[in-house]
């Protein structure tokens, strides 16, 4: 708590300094002191710097560099989760809890949207409020999609899976988490600055004209970008240099490969969205005209730069979910991961192709017509590497010995939902069909099937799968299974009818629609409420089991990967001694199956 207080204090001071500095210079040149957006922008950038110095940069880097006496925190127990802590397991929990909180918040916002859309006509909220709620729902959920799984399990589990003591850069790791609170603060600030209209995509020039909340959306996305890039550098370095002896690339668990691919995308592409956000802020607050057609700017420029990142970003949201699904399917089928190398190649193929599909978001934007052809082709080809992941999942289950526990159910849910998400993607990638479907509820259905059906179901699979590892206790299996079926049914009832709505003339991001669409919308809304209510059961299960679930040993699933060969939860440096990997993580079955890794017992000197 002291850390947060100090961060807020230093941040506020830096905010005021920023405002004063800008105001002072403005006064010098004969302008008024306060210019709302410019002052807020400079102040907020100051806040980020002050906050980071306050929470740990000063204590962890500056003092050491300047040879001042060190003051690093030694807290333990629950308190350490509120400090700048370099233990990757603490950082993982920090990410998980923070983003689960944000996920539930954005889910509540979705309930408001569906409440308004229950009937045609304006019923509960005015359009400005609706747009604001819709924009926040989208923005927060995208942030959750980008950061939750990698942040939580990339941090907590990945280093243990490869036999490392921690991440390659533990302090940088803590820093990438502490970028997150300002992200949330800016989103809250956007509400107090009248909100914003633009959805999570922030298209210019609406974004340069809408309410001041837009500025905070820009700041928020920009700040999250820092966190993603730093996190990606750390993940890549960790996987490249910290693998235990014997952990060759060909023996990496598939989840590690998924995070590796995700991190390549985050590292290479996040800068583009930061650029889009900076340009938009400068248009708003500083009188630049990047996107103002009347002054030589280009609205399409924004879309291009934005989607340079934001298409790869959807794979940032999905790949970890696919990785988790394959990981769990192998362990719960008790069979080697089928066509492991093909699956890895598939993931890397997705990573490569995702760089060259961005303009499929712009087929009806007025972009150069023939240029749509290459993007249609690359987009349709991306189904090939994705298909290899399906091959691996199905091949692994085939003739396996399936134990349908909650994590396995969620993993199979990923496969089922992502099948629908992937196939509907082909419809959207076809230029003529997209002329009808673009910007309709068909698209809303499609991306919820991929990002929620794939990514978020994957997140839940991961939470259940690694819950005993992280807490040392077991969740309630019965409640877990009930929650799975509840979520699967609620999810499909909510999003399947959206395809019909889109085909029949319901465009996205609207607070109101024509009466002929009312019946289906009512059904969707009721399903959405049902879906939303199911998360209460999840919360109850997690909280109750964390406190009084039955205690478990190191390996309740009998899985082979390294995180199950240490205590639950693992000790500070994960293993008593550095493990030596001697065989493939998925070498189930057959008499010749050896252990995946040997962990030397430390000399019993003390």
């Amino acid at each position, binding site marked *: 708590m002291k850390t947060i207080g100090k961060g807020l204090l230093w941040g506020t001071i830096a905010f005021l300094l920023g405002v004063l500095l800008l105001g002072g210079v403005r006064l010098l040149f004969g302008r008024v002191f306060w210019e709302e957006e410019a002052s807020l922008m400079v102040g907020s950038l100051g806040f980020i710097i002050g906050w980071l110095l306050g929470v740990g940069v000063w204590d962890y880097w500056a003092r050491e560099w300047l040879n001042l006496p060190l003051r690093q925190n030694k807290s333990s127990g629950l308190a350490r989760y509120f400090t700048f802590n370099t233990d990757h397991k603490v950082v993982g929990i920090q990410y998980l809890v923070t983003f689960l909180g944000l996920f539930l918040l954005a889910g509540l916002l979705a309930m408001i949207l569906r409440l308004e859309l229950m009937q*045609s*006509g*304006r*019923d509960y909220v*005015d*359009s400005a409020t609706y747009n604001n709620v819709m924009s926040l729902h989208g923005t927060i959920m995208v942030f959750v999609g980008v950061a939750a799984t990698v942040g939580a399990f990339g941090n907590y589990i990945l280093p243990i899976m490869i036999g490392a003591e921690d991440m390659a850069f533990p302090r940088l790791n803590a820093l990438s988490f502490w970028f997150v609170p300002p992200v949330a603060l800016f989103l809250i600030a956007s509400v107090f600055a009248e909100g914003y*209209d633009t*959805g999570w995509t922030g298209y210019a*020039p609406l974004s340069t004209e*809408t309410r001041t909340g837009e500025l905070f959306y820009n700041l928020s996305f920009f700040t999250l970008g820092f966190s993603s890039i730093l996190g990606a550098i750390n993940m890549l370095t960790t996987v490249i240099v910290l693998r235990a002896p014997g952990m060759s690339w060909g023996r990496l668990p598939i989840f590690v490969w998924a995070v590796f691919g995700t991190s390549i995308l985050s590292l290479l592409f996040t800068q583009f969205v930061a650029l889009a956000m900076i340009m938009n802020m400068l248009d708003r607050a500083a009188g630049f005209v990047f996107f103002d*057609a009347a002054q030589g700017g280009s*609205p399409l420029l924004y879309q291009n730069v934005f989607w340079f990142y934001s298409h790869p970003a959807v794979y940032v949201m999905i790949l970890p979910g696919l990785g988790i699904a394959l990981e769990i399917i192998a362990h719960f*089928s*008790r*069979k*080697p991961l*089928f*066509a*492991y*190398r*093909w699956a890895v190649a598939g993931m890397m193929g997705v990573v490569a192709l995702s760089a060259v599909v961005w303009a499929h978001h712009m087929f009806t*934007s*007025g972009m150069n017509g023939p240029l749509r052809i290459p993007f249609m*082709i690359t987009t*349709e*080809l991306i*189904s*090939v590497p994705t298909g*290899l992941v399906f091959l691996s999942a*199905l091949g692994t*289950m*085939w*003739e396996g*010995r*399936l*134990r349908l526990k909650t994590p396995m159910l969620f993993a199979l849910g990923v496969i*089922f939902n992502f099948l629908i998400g992937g*196939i509907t993607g*082909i*419809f959207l990638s*076809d*230029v*003529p*069909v997209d*002329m*009808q479907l*673009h*910007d309709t509820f068909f698209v809303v259905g499609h991306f919820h099937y991929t990002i929620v059906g794939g990514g978020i179901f994957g997140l839940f699979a991961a939470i259940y799968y690694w819950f005993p590892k992280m807490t040392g206790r077991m969740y309630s299996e019965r409640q877990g299974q009930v929650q799975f079926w509840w979520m699967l049914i609620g999810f499909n009832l909510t999003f399947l009818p959206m395809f019909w709505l889109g*085909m029949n*003339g319901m465009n*996205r991001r*609207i*607070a*109101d629609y024509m*009466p*002929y669409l009312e019946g289906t919308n009512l059904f969707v809304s009721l399903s959405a409420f049902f879906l939303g209510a199911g998360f209460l059961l999840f919360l109850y299960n997690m909280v109750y089991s964390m406190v009084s679930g039955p205690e478990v040993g190191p390996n309740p699933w009998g899985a082979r990967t390294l995180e199950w060969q240490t205590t639950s939860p693992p000790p500070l440096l994960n293993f008593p001694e550095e493990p030596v990997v001697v065989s493939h993580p*998925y*070498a189930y079955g*057959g008499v010749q*199956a050896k252990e995946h890794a040997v962990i030397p017992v430390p000399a019993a000197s003390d």
Partner: protein
Amino acid sequence: MNRNLATVLIIWLLLSVAGIVWLGSAAIFPPSAASEAALIDDAFRLLLILAVPVAALVLTVLGYSLLRFRVAEDDDEDGPPIHGSRPVAMGWFVITTALAVFVVFNPGLKGLNELEAVERADPLVIQVEGEQWHWNVTYPQHDLSYERALQIALPVDQTVKFEISSADVIHSLWIPAFRMKMDALPGEMTTLYVTPDEPGSFETEPTLRVQCAELCGTGHPRMQMGVRVLEGAAFEEWLAAAKEATGGGMQMDMDMDMGGETDMEMDMNGGDGNGMEMDGDASMEMDQ
């Protein structure tokens, strides 16, 4: 052949055939009112038919495995040590690639080509300008111009060229019954060709409307115009009446010209006056 494989194969074939028969003819589209719409529906239908065996395969293997290979939750025996199969992986890769390439050509390139090849000579030009939150419509060949138009009239079986622009932010002109949309950009003109092929009116068919499809602010959902597709003679009559009514360039709202209870807002509210809150100019439009 092993029994599991044979069973899956049979279920898959049955499911695929049933799915193709059903989806190959099921009425899944809203009314179609333009020749482009027929092309686009055909492309959609083809994709749907191609998707059936793919989805059926995954679902069959998934479902069969769930039922057939399930063991007790506390079972701890391993499955067979099958790490993969080169022919299966290679075959999967080749077939999915072939399918993707096929889709690129048909309906992809073929459909796009057909869409471009639709007759475009001597179009009726209609300039549509999006403005928060209404459309301004001009028929330059007929000296007709409407600000805040609530309807447009189009002749059947004649190509229409929409010249689309925006006065402020990005909008998008979408007519669901035509299956076509194109964004309206500030500072640039975009075009959309469409040939209505079925007379009709938004009063009976709500997909016959221009709907803004790009988020443009608070009035976005209500940024609509009704579309009337008229037979040749009826369209000429309408033109003559419209010219008469505007009396040489005076601009009036089309709903006033057309008279009657025709504006979409009424339909949308169900007549209870519980309309959307809109600011400034847009609410005036509702009051008219």
